[in-house]
């Protein structure tokens, strides 16, 4: 995925060596903020532009809240993994919950019959819109979403 040519360094840091941060989050309100903090720390280290980081923040937030909200009450842990270079971010978010069939998932209408935006059903749309690659693998043993985002 990464380009083979060595990259310029940002202030002496080797920005072409991927850094990986892995977190297993417990079901605690707002715990996704800890993952966001990790994301922002890596991004600052690699000198990523603020707009890219802001978009990644939305993706990560939506992925984690979906995992806790939809995987079932037995899910006590959601695993998150960021792999980042100056060029690209890969995000994994995994739960071991009830799963769903992304193909038959009825993408809810994004407007109601009155023409207003729907209240819910925005997570998938936001993640897709703000990323460059979006894959779901889901089954009885849980759901993993893998998202890639270009950062340069």
């Amino acid at each position, binding site marked *: 995925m990464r380009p083979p040519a060595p990259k310029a360094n940002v202030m002496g840091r080797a920005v072409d060596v991927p850094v990986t941060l892995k977190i297993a989050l417990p079901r605690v309100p*707002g715990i996704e903020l800890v993952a966001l903090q990790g994301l922002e720390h890596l991004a600052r280290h690699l000198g990523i532009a603020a707009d890219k980081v802001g978009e990644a*923040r939305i993706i990560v937030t939506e992925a984690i809240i979906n995992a806790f909200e939809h995987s079932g009450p037995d899910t006590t842990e959601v695993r998150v993994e960021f792999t980042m270079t100056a060029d690209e971010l890969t995000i994994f978010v995994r739960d071991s919950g009830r799963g769903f069939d992304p193909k038959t998932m009825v993408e809810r209408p994004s407007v109601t019959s009155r023409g*207003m*935006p729907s*209240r*819910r059903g*925005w997570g998938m*749309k936001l993640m897709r*819109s703000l990323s460059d690659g979006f894959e779901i693998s889901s089954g009885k043993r849980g759901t993993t979403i893998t998202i890639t985002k270009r950062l340069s």
Partner: protein
Amino acid sequence: MEQPFSLTSEVRENRLIITTNGYVNNVGGAAIAEEFQRHFTEGVRHVIIDLALSRVVNSVGMSFLIEIIEKLTDAGGRLVFTNLDPSVDKMLGIMGLYDFAGREATTEDALRALAIRS
């Protein structure tokens, strides 16, 4: 990191101004909705939400704001967002909210934009 959610509010020129601080998730969204409802019941029809200190919002939090937009639209009122972080602005854009709500750089701008309304 985002602070635990809090808000302050003020009514100026019959406009409700809600200023948030921290993560607008389900908890933050519900707090905003409650504050809104209290003033809506008393007849306020134009609302400004200043999100300067809420750099992180999620779609569950936003669902409460969509509900507010619905109520205001039905009542001939309007919601205006101010001081948006660029990522929050982008999110509201993707969700199509700007067809039904305004956005202005500052609260003063929002008051001016709402001034022509009754």
